[in-house]
């Protein structure tokens, strides 16, 4: 199975955490909250499209209430394989970081 890219992981985690409130701009907000990076709408939609195509995300369109604007709003949620992929990614993270000493990340001058 193909590994997820970091961006994809972030997206999936954001959608997952938003639960049933995961729609476009909220996903973007969540990511900003999590990572401090703000994506453009173009990147947002493209990544969502990619994830949908890979079968990790499914979108559902709902009509929202009149006082909320009365628009069509698309909600995203993780599919089973999405969950699976996320778990795999987490495991992989775990594995590759295991036993790696923190001091190895220290800057050279800090060491000295």
């Amino acid at each position, binding site marked *: 199975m193909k590994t997820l890219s970091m961006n994809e992981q972030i997206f999936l985690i954001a959608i997952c955490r938003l639960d049933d409130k995961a*729609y*476009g701009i909220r996903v973007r907000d969540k990511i900003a909250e999590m990572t401090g990076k703000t994506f453009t*709408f173009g990147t947002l939609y493209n990544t969502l499209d990619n994830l949908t195509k890979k079968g990790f995300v499914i979108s559902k369109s709902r009509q929202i209430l009149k006082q909320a604007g009365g*628009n069509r*709003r*698309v909600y995203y949620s993780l599919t089973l394989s999405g969950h699976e992929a996320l778990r795999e990614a987490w495991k992989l993270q775990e594995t590759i970081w295991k036993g790696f000493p923190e001091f190895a990340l220290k800057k050279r001058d800090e060491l000295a």
Partner: protein
Amino acid sequence: MNSPEFPRPPRPAARIIRRIERRRTNHSIHDDLLEAFTRIRERRGYAAACLWYWSQSLVLAIYESVTGAKWRFLIMQNYLKPAFRNAVRQKRYSLINVIGLAVGIACGILIFVYVNYELSYDAYHPDAGRIYRAATHLKMYNSDFISADAPAPLSAALKREYPEAEYACQVISSNQILLDVDGKYFREDGLLFVDKDFFDIWSIEFRAGGSLELLNRPSTLLLTETLAHKYFGSSDPVGKIIQINRRPFEIAGIIKACPPNSHLRYQFLTSISNYEESSENMAEWANLIGQVFVKLRPSVSGEDFAEKTRSIAHQHRGDYFRQRSWTYELLWEPIRSLHLHSRADAGNNMVVIYGLSVIGVLILFVACFNFVNLATATAVTRAKEVALRKVVGAERTHLIQQFLAETAFFAASALLLAVLLVILVLPVFNRLVERQFRVNALLQSNVLFYVLFLILMITVLAGGYPSLVLSRIKPAAALANRFGSGGYRSILRRVFITVQFVIVTVLIVSTLTIFHQIGYMKNRNLGFENKQKLIIPVRLTNNADFVKSEFLKNPDISGASASFQILGRIFIAVTSRSIGEDPKEFVIAYEYADPDFIPEYKIPIVAGRNFDKNLGSDVGRALILNESAVKIFGWDSPQKALGKVIESHGFGASFYRTVIGVTRDFHFQGLQRPIGPLGILYVPARFRFLNLTVRADHIHETLAFIQSKWSELHLGEIFSYSFLDERFNQLYAADQRTGQIFAAFAFLAVFLSCLGLYGLSAFVTMQRTKEIGIRKVLGATVPKILGLVSREFVGLVALANILAWPWAYWMMSRWLKNYAYRITLDGTVFALTFGIGLLIALIAVGYHALKSATSNPVDSLKYYG
């Protein structure tokens, strides 16, 4: 947070976003952007939010259009590929379609360029809408006509009394002037005598000098650039002296050449003070001298001004006109109307313009009908494609789009061919309409717009119906091969063929009638001999007899006479009154001629005698009338006219002349006008033309002899000659041109209909191959089958003829009313047209009919399917 509080994002931007969202994605872009908008609004204000929102929508729109174009291109490819393949597979139909459309478009372009040019006449004047020309409507005795000339003192009076006229100028034009540039002689047209307001009405561009010098110094002249270059090359002409009609003029300046689309042509301008006419004559309201133009003030309406000045001549000279019961009324014509529909100028070209425009449209229709006919007839070949497209989900609008795109493709390729055609035939067309169009005339913006419009129109006109028919095909039937023949007998197709042939018939009838009338005029007995007459303009004083005898020394010159005007163009007319009981006054045309004139031209004298060379009393006093003159003066017979005295007025003086003879009527003004009253006088001092009768053989030697005699006798500076019969034919040149134009377009219409019929018959016979095979097996003969195939087309041609005849008859009888002497429209022209139409149809249909009729039935029945 996501409560949508007002104000909302800008509406147009929101619309763009909503549209793209609907069409392109399955995300809720609109909703997301709305929320983002609300946030920005709360944080940074409405304006910033709007700016952001707009930028988002624009980025999206650009993205959308880029990806959209890619898709549209792919779809177009999908539409055009089968169109192209089909075109290649059915070479004959495609060729017919493209050639037909190309010829139609080429005609359309040429006619548009011409009509556009003709309508642009005099539009170059600043404020052309405020410039008018005076015309005088004269009623005196037997004559009632509108002259383009105005009473001599008119412009001065307008300047004095009518402040509505911002500028008023008198323009006297002089043609055929003799120019002497350093001893070299030229004949030129277009010398205008103008006053100072001319420069305010016409926008003359100066290359050197100015109007002030011209107006302030006597005997000065302005010259166009073209002529300055012709006479002086690159040297500076200003200040040089040239002689015009043996009078020296100093060149005061150089002006830009007269625009070609100007009704008033000029090459030289000089002040009106140089015009040699007595001041009494220039002050006389009864004299019409030169044209008068006014430029009205912006607030003045042309009608009001015309109404106010209508009887201005009578206000100044009422008693004089009342005495004679003449009326002189002014008419004002807008300068832009002068070229095409002036009431005063000869030749109402507007008819030609209308006619041409209609013909252009009709030819386009013929070409479009061909396209529709062929496209619907061959629909069967596309049935499977359409059916398959429908099966895989094409909607009807898609199919209509596809076939319209196909037609546009055909029209565009036809356009390329048409442009080539136009470039090729432009020289011929120029000769036909006597204009000088260049290829870059096609690049004007209005021509380009017109071409674009043409393509669009053709696409809709020619592609509309076939696309409806083709998109209607039922897929199940078509795929099961149960699609019919497309109905080669469809009503619409018959209607189209009939209409095509109605157009063809009208054009052929018109062409035949025009040429018939021209032939009639050329061959009609004019009442005098006009063959082998050589006309030479000369300066004769009282030495005509001596000059004639010198020329007669050559044995190939059998006769000579002298005259003031040329036969066929006798237009000098003077009012004349009969003296005695029951006096009457009329306007009569006059010719001055010597005693040899009447016998040389073999004009029969019905009473009295010719002038006598030996009778001094004949000079200036004896008068020979024609029968029409005798008739209007009310004398019962030519004999009774002899000895009567006629008083005529000319330029202030009265003359009394005795009638000594009467000639039979002859056409002294050509055949367009009825024969009017004419008087011939013997006044040697006024002779300006030598009429020689020459033998047809040795014509070159004779001409050489005449020329050498000419210089030997010092008869003038420039030798020129013409043959009288050719001059007469030139009178009909305009009609001849109209005829040729009609002939050319009739030919094109015939060609196009032939093309259509040829293609259609090919298709129809192909459809009926099996039927014909079976008929042959059962014993049908070749002629029978020929009849079977061509019967339908022949019937349609006959119907078209019957429909077209009344229309053609009405049109042509109106046109013939322009001629005093005209042919009667009889059956022969119509019968001939029917014959031609039939022949055309048979030739077009015959090839395929014959091919299928003579083919072996075994071949056509061999295949089952």
